[in-house]
């Protein structure tokens, strides 16, 4: 039962600033993902919450108590490391029971807790093994078990699945999420994989260069990215970006791209003639006419990637490269020229100067 509140948190390594003022409020029981490009400070933030890195400025607050100077062993926070960090000279049972042992729980109690957790994770048959005799997935589970068995205030995960193969990754992400729901423990999860972030989280935190770009529910972040960084970071294939110039006509706005004008169907609060960037997700482009207010883009096919369910069709509109996620039935040929259509309300508009969302 834990809330985590982070305010104006900064981290410098020597003279190099790595986190520039992070504000984040995490409610009890929430599953929060930190995503962002490599080197943006996700691990640093997580390790500061764990107490493994010192705080340069700002506060970290656990259940209303500032824990900046509380040592890691007294924070009651468990962490699953990317490389698992199992104690190699201890058996699975000893690894999982280590924290309980330190708390001076009775051997019978430890034994029971370890057995229950092992059963939960399908590790019952491996309790007497040493880590070196386990597969990657099993080690991952032991690392999880070590965190779960002690019922901590908060779980921290630093890319726990990145060493596993794709299939196991999907399976483990479901297991982790199910387990976390069942236990109701607040969890903070660092990942490179936006698919993991989207599917597992109550809240996604998109980071970039030591700052938070956007915080929100996965769908909200996907549907209304706050800026160009988030727009291109979340979603695969990435959102198409087309540059244009804003115009206003009869209280409604439109974007001039090349020779054509694309109506927005709404009023955008920005001076006319301002350079803007239109964002359109690949799945919002189609060959068939769209419902409601429609736009069309001339399109020349360069490359088709069949993924099975749909095809990613890469090509050019004007001088801009874009990609559309089209139905397999569309049956396009390389070099073919067509018109892609979409609904105007699916267009995201960003200020080119600031990158900020405009509506």
């Amino acid at each position, binding site marked *: 039962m834990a809330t985590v509140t982070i305010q104006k948190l900064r981290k410098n390594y020597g003279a190099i600033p790595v986190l520039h003022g992070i504000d984040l409020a995490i409610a009890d029981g929430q599953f929060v993902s930190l995503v962002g490009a490599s080197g943006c400070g996700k691990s640093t933030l997580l390790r500061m919450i764990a107490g493994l890195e010192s705080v340069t400025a700002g506060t970290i607050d656990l259940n209303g108590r500032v824990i900046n100077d509380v040592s*890691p062993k007294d*924070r009651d926070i468990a962490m699953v490391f990317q490389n698992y960090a199992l104690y190699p000279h201890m058996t699975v049972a000893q690894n999982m029971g280590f924290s309980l042992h330190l708390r001076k729980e009775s051997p019978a109690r430890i034994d029971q807790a370890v057995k229950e957790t092992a059963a939960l994770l399908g590790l019952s048959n491996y309790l007497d093994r040493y880590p070196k005799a386990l597969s990657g997935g099993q080690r991952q589970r032991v690392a999880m078990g070590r965190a779960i068995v002690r019922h901590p205030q908060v779980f921290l995960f630093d890319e726990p699945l990145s060493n596993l193969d794709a299939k196991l990754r999907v399976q483990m992400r479901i297991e982790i999420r199910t387990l976390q729901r069942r236990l109701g423990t607040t969890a903070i999860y660092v990942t490179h994989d936006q698919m993991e972030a989207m599917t597992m989280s109550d809240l996604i935190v998109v980071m970039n260069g030591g700052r938070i770009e956007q915080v929100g529910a996965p769908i909200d972040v996907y549907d209304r990215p706050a800026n160009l960084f988030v727009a291109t970071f979340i979603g695969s294939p990435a959102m198409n970006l087309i540059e244009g110039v804003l115009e206003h006509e009869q209280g409604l706005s439109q974007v001039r791209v090349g020779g054509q004008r694309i109506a927005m169907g709404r009023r955008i609060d920005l001076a006319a003639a301002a350079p803007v960037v239109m964002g359109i997700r690949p799945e919002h482009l189609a060959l068939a006419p769209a419902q409601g207010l429609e736009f069309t883009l001339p399109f020349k096919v360069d490359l088709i990637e069949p993924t099975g369910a749909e095809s990613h069709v890469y090509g050019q509109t004007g001088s801009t490269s874009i990609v559309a996620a089209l139905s397999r039935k569309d049956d396009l040929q390389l070099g073919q020229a067509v018109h892609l259509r979409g609904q105007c309300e699916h267009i995201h508009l960003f200020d080119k100067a600031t990158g900020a969302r405009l509506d």
Partner: protein
Amino acid sequence: MRKLTLHYLGRAGFALAVLVLLLWSLGPVYWAVLTSFTDPRDMLSEHLSLWPQHPTLEHFAKLFGASSASQGNEVQSVWPQFSRAFVNSLVTSAAATLVTLAAAAFGGYAFVRLRFPGRDLLFGLVVASMAVPAYTVMIPLYRLMISLHLIDTYLGVTLIYVSAFLPLALWLMRSVYQSLPVALEEAAWLDGAGRTYTLVRIVLPLAAPGLIATAILTFLSAWGQFMVPLVFSPSLATKSLTVLIPEFVTRNYVDYGLMNAAGVVAMLPPVLLVIFLNRFLVRGLIAGATK
């Protein structure tokens, strides 16, 4: 064809190198063992022999006996002196090893994982002290030991050994700790362990091969020390084997047989220690910790 010839030449060269090395290191040992079993009359013989012509245990009898005869005369037994020096060597070497190991185990860790001002400078100085020749500090050290009343005491000799061998031991242990993943320790801290508990329960077991290597090295260095006991152990109270054995040389007669019998016995503790500790030098202890 040419390649094959080169290959065989290479192997022959390698074999030769190994042979020379073996001769170099085992030759003296063999000679000592040989001499310790050789009849005194054969020792003075003209031709060199690689095998005792008339094997005898007389030298060992003289070493261990309550009394003994030498060239027909009853002479005083050397056993009381020898056994005393043996114990002295054991006590000082073992004490020096234990103290050095404990200090290096904790100190090396501090030099790797703790942050304190001047850490690297301090470590540099410790390592640099290895370059100071022992002879230059002998006289000041002697005066220091006199004023502390530590001449000819176990404590004094042990302290000197520790000060001499600790820098290398620290250096070794520091490299061992540097090679261990810090994530294991971080995991232990998050599990609720303090610094010392983590060091003892998590780090030291994983550093065991390094600890054992350090222990062997320290013990062998202490066991073989000559100059320190020569200067600081004037009496049998703390005199070591290395100093005692050469004293078997009397004014008129060098008893090679006895000296070598004593030397062979003196070799046993280090050999046994290495064989014993080697069993714990298991490799791959760290395997499975990560990934």
